């Protein structure tokens, strides 16, 4: 099974409250914030790694995971790709582009061009990037390819080496189950990190992965050493024949207004109820 996993580098989402905008509102500045792998992509990478390994045999690889990142060809993008390679992916592709020239539309076109070259069985990606929060590129990619998409997958079971999938996906009102004939695009929900959320027909069906609290697996020391030797190919929109035609134009960025008022520390349950009833008048 061959899986393409797009990964994006984003300004540290856990410190997004420290972001600033430039004086004229023309740009978001993330000075002082570390670049991190988009956490949503990290979950998808975990799913892809589980699909392409035998967890009962020390996570022996039984398939291939190709990482692709679109962004500046700098140490940060390189580091994010190496991090994914250290976790177990086989190789990486860096598509050179400036961040502020990209939107979901261009990302979907670039990914289509990569899929056309690599012919993976699956593309597994984050439902959104933690910076733009758009939740658009995956579905647009699927439409460009004429492939089905399963958004918000919480359980993935593959058969025939990834040619068919049974997926449970999260809805606002519950959970839907679909069967998909691949190749296909999948985006993941938080629940894909659960110990029994991914079944590939190779790892024993009753295998329990370690409980992951926040993101995907950590790289082992051996993985980090091996990653240094794994190839990262560099390409560009031009090489891929993608027109950098944005569909969106941001005209202004602002920091949202801070919540007004101080926090009132109440002394007791009675005090709280009195304030909510008489002052705030919300109960």
């Amino acid at each position, binding site marked *: 099974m061959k899986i393409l996993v797009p990964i994006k580098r984003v300004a540290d989402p856990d410190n997004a409250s420290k972001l600033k905008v430039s004086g004229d509102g023309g740009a*978001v500045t993330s000075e002082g914030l570390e670049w991190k792998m988009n956490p949503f992509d990290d979950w998808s990478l975990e799913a892809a790694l589980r699909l392409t390994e035998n967890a009962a045999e020390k996570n022996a690889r039984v398939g291939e995971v190709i990482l692709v990142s679109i962004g500046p060809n700098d140490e940060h993008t390189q580091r994010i790709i190496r991090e994914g390679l250290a976790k177990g992916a086989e190789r990486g592709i860096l598509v050179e582009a400036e961040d502020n020239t990209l939107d979901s539309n261009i990302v979907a076109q670039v990914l289509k061009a990569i899929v056309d070259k690599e012919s993976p069985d699956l593309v597994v990606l984050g439902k959104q990037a933690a910076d733009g929060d758009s939740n658009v590129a995956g*579905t*647009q990619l699927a439409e460009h390819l004429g492939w089905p998409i399963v958004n918000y997958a919480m359980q993935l079971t593959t058969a025939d080496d990834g040619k068919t999938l049974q997926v449970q996906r999260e809805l606002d009102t519950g*959970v839907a189950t*679909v069967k998909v004939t691949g190749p296909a695009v999948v985006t993941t929900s938080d629940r894909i990190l659960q110990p029994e959320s991914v079944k590939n027909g190779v790892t024993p069906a009753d295998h329990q992965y370690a409980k992951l609290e926040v993101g995907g697996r950590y790289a082992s020391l051996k993985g980090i050493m091996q990653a240094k030797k794994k190839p990262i190919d560099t390409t560009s929109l031009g090489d891929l024949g993608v027109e950098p035609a944005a569909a969106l134009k941001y005209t202004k960025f602002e920091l949202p207004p801070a919540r007004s008022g101080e926090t009132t520390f109440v002394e007791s349950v009675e005090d709280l109820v009195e304030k909510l009833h008489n002052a705030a008048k919300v109960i």
Partner: protein
Amino acid sequence: MANVLVVAELLEGKARKTTLCGVTAAKTIAEGTGGSFDILAIGEGAGAAAEELTGFGAGKVLKADIAGGYVCEKYAATVAAVGEGYDVVVACASAYGKDLLPRVAAKLSAGVASDISAVHVDGGNLSYTRPMYAGNVSGTVEILTPKQVVTVRQSEFDAAAESGGSSPIEDAAVTADPVADKVEFVGVEVVKSERPELTEADIVVSGGRALKSAENFTNVIEPLVDALGAAMGASRAACDAGYVSPELQVGQTGKVVAPKLYLAIGISGAIQHLAGMKGSKTIVAINKDKEAPIAQVADYFLVADLFDAIPALTEEVKKL
């Protein structure tokens, strides 16, 4: 002049309230540009849902009855074919809207402004404000393509009220899509609750990891939820731990809520959680740790052990 198509969201043959948030956005666009709006009811039981939607001032209500469960591959071609006749296609940024509309947009070669919090009309030109970076930045965006696709954040657009009149109902042609043959809808488990919907409730009571178990949600949180007539929510940690089901998750990766009163119980307040609730009018935190980040957004903070405080709070609320 922008003519707008609102894509209704159906659940078991009825229009979900999310539909009416889309209607509110569509009205703003149509009125601001001197255009009009129509509604498309699509899915199983679209006829009955269309009947429900005739009183909101739409030029017409279109219906496309498609049997079987929803997958975006079965709907997108029909929505796109109908959408060809409009300038802007709108739906709520629910899990449904965010699944369906990007596919429709790709068919229409349209840019998508997703999860918008406001519509601006300036001299007939449209732009949109949308929260980014888990709500820590808001961006104003223009869509450059001839057709525009927009999903709207439910907590920022009130549900449209009935405005009288009776929009005519027309059939929309169903367009087949070969990609739909690659997806088989197996089933859906709809979570039923007597409580208000999380995204529609006036009061939301959310619990976090500190609850420690599903039983504690049942025995400690639920009595308070019901005493307040509230909806129940939870942090990602509580959902991941299996204390409550995933559709109750509030945050960047769950639902965005903005009730009149939000109670965060045993929730530390990770930035991803704040993204889903900091638009609430009054925020109460009940937590043992007064330094918890939830204090950044809390109006009232009770420093207490929740296992003592919540049963007492429930009793006090019942006395009101």
